[in-house]
């Protein structure tokens, strides 16, 4: 067994034509080691990962200096193809990680590229599918899979060749609790069988750890700051309170036990009598433009409400497709935020696109005002060549100040002249929301608005949704993140098995283990405890908002 490190970086720096970059990085990864790379959105984590297997500069234009070698091979000379037998890569966007039309072909492709014995291929494909919990997807067409299902197939394809180095870029972003378990067990299985090293970029640390907290995460952390410089490289247990506070201030999501050292989340004591919103509000490096007014709350659906009756929705909205949801009744009244919850593939995206009028339902009706929809894949909705033009798209002249205010609020001001497609995943998500908010539709639908975002960005996005409701609009969003749901939503709708199984509030949902089980939802244990300790929904929301506010203050203190 060689003692040579698997990955060696010496003063590796990546600079894009725009001047932004990441590095210089000098570190090694030993064979079989697990490393977690974390940092705020847009800091260069994905770029660092792509540099490790040669996609930067091979496929993506950038200047890379320094020396980098993987498994003893200099990456600058081998390129991506030269590392194909030792590196497996899972990207952030599941639809771009899948390239063939059948699941079986998709998994056989890497094996064929490596000249694997054809007789062994079906067995290896079956093993890889079983390892990610996707055996039921064998024989399906990849275009028909939901985002989360595609992600599982992408992970299976990356691990089917038993690589020595596995690079995972936010593999859990689109996945539900069962899917996250699948990722974790797949990665653990690969490590157990082949001793592969893992470099993981992840935001949702608590979910990835599966309730084990720090112990369930890679032992070694590399922290990248907003400017792309490496700030910390070492065991997570060596992080002291100041370092943790700095990470929180930078906007990283941290496991609850680390966050609790700096910002304890506890139920509010006494009777809260200050109406929500008249306090200073949560402002961090992402400034909220307006002070929130007291919301009007829900009520009987008025003329501005979105009402759906007896809706039957086909998978992906295809005409004549198989129905994925039957007989759905729902209302989104002005002034309320409703969350749509459910496992992958249960029809949440299809329902949202149907409500937005993009597809005709198979049965039933949708009535209501003009609706705005924020897509699951932000790149699908981009229309313009620059970020500023995207936010301003379709607006009447004279609204420049509003555009600037939105850019400021979502921390896109310094990216205003960039091309939308060249942003990081989280930046694209913020841009798509900002562009839709500019139009002030009476009802706003959002498909996983918090996906791939760091803490500050998630708080800003959820606040923006809350603001829409406070300004009199209605909001319906789908999410896997129960914390965001508990912080923002007035009501929660759970879909499973083709039907709506619950219409409830976030707190009642969190304290109902039976419902959580039926909906295949798995909140973090601390969130369940907090929900039980809080007397009602408002108290729960207050507690979570208070924690967000304190982290926002930390961020402002550091930025100042």
């Amino acid at each position: 067994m060689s003692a040579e490190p698997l990955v060696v970086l010496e003063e590796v720096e990546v600079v894009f034509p725009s001047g932004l970059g990441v590095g210089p990085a000098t570190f090694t990864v030993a064979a079989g080691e697990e490393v977690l790379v974390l940092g705020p959105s847009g800091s260069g984590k994905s770029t660092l990962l792509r540099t490790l297997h040669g996609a930067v500069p091979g496929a993506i234009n950038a200047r890379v200096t320094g020396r980098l070698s993987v498994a003893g091979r200099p990456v600058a000379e081998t390129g991506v193809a030269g590392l194909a037998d030792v590196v497996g890569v899972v990207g952030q966007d599941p639809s771009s990680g899948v390239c063939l039309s059948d699941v079986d072909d998709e998994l056989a492709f890497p094996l064929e590229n490596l000249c694997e014995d054809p007789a062994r291929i079906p067995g290896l494909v079956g093993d890889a599918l079983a390892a990610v919990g996707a055996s039921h997807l064998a024989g399906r067409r990849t275009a028909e899979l939901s985002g989360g299902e595609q992600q599982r197939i992408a992970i299976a394809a990356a691990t089917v060749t038993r690589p020595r180095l596995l690079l995972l870029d936010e593999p859990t972003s689109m996945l539900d609790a069962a899917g996250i378990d699948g990722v974790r067990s797949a990665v653990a299985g690969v490590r157990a069988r082949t001793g592969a090293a893992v470099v993981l970029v992840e935001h949702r640390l608590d979910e990835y750890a599966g309730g084990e907290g720090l112990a369930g995460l890679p032992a070694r952390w590399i922290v990248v700051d907003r400017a792309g410089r490496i700030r910390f490289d070492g065991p997570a247990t060596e992080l002291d309170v100041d370092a943790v506070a700095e990470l929180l201030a930078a906007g990283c999501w941290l496991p609850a036990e680390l966050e609790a050292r700096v910002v304890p989340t506890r139920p509010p004591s006494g009777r809260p009598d200050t109406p929500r919103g008249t306090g200073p509000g949560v402002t961090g490096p992402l400034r909220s433009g307006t002070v929130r007014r007291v919301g009007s709350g829900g009520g009987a659906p008025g003329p501005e409400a979105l009402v759906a009756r007896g809706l039957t929705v086909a998978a992906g909205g295809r005409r004549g497709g198989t129905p994925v949801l039957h007989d759905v009744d729902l209302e989104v009244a002005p002034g309320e935020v409703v969350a749509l919850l459910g496992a992958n593939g249960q029809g949440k995206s299809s329902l949202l696109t149907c409500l937005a009028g993009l597809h005709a339902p198979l049965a039933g009706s949708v009535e209501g005002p003009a609706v705005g929809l924020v897509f699951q894949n932000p790149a699908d909705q981009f229309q313009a060549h620059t970020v500023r033009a995207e936010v301003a798209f379709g607006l009447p002249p004279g609204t420049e100040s509003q555009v600037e205010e939105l850019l400021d609020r979502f921390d896109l001001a310094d990216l205003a002249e960039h091309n939308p497609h060249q942003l990081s995943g989280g930046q694209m998500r913020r841009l798509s929301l900002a562009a839709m908010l500019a139009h002030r539709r009476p009802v706003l639908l959002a498909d996983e608005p918090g996906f791939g975002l760091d803490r500050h960005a998630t708080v800003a996005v959820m606040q923006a949704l809350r603001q829409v409701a406070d300004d009199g609009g209605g909001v319906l969003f789908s999410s896997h993140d129960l914390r965001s749901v508990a912080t923002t939503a007035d009501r929660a709708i759970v879909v499973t098995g083709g039907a709506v199984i619950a219409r409830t509030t976030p707190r009642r949902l969190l304290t109902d283990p039976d419902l959580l089980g039926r909906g295949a939802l798995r909140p973090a244990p601390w969130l369940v405890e907090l929900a039980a300790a809080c007397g009602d929904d408002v108290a729960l929301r207050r507690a979570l908002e208070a924690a967000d506010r304190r982290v926002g203050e930390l961020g402002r203190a550091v930025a100042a």
Partner: protein
Amino acid sequence: MLRRDEERAALPLRDIVLMVVLGVTFGFLYWVLVQAWNALAVAMGPAGDLAQHVLFGGWLLVAPLAIAIIRRPGVGIIAEILASVVEVVFLGSPVGPTLVIAAAVQGFGSELAFALGRYRRFGWGTYALSGLLGAGLVFFYSAFRSGWYGQNIFWLRFAMQCASGVVLGGLLGKVLVDALRATGVLANFNISRDDTPAEVVRRER
């Protein structure tokens, strides 16, 4: 600038796919132009036979586009041949299989202008020369096939075809390349590597 080893290495898969996509897309567009040619020929009445010379430059377009984006020798010729194959095999071009020969000559002519600049000069002049050579060289082959030798409008045809080549096959090509570049879709192809200043200074966010 491409590194020396990259200039000699095989074309990366991504560039091959782009070349094929351009070839097929323009194969269809060329076929559309043929329909426009028919309409123009009828509209021009007794001068209808000259309509092909008026529109000729349009059939050169894929070569400068492919060369400007991929920046490797030969991609213009291949893309042009692919386009003609699509026209002949899938769209039933009235010209028939000899169109492929004409496409090869056109592609060669278009490439020649860029080759003379060592694939590093991409100004208006190079594009114009590309259109001129693409239209001019193939003229003599078409004249042989169509029996234009001996006609007293021979040089009129030649002049019209060359003018069309310069405008529609050269200058229009640069307009298209610049428009594509502005959308950002070409950010990771060789065209953008040449756009990047050699010394990029890292800036802080």
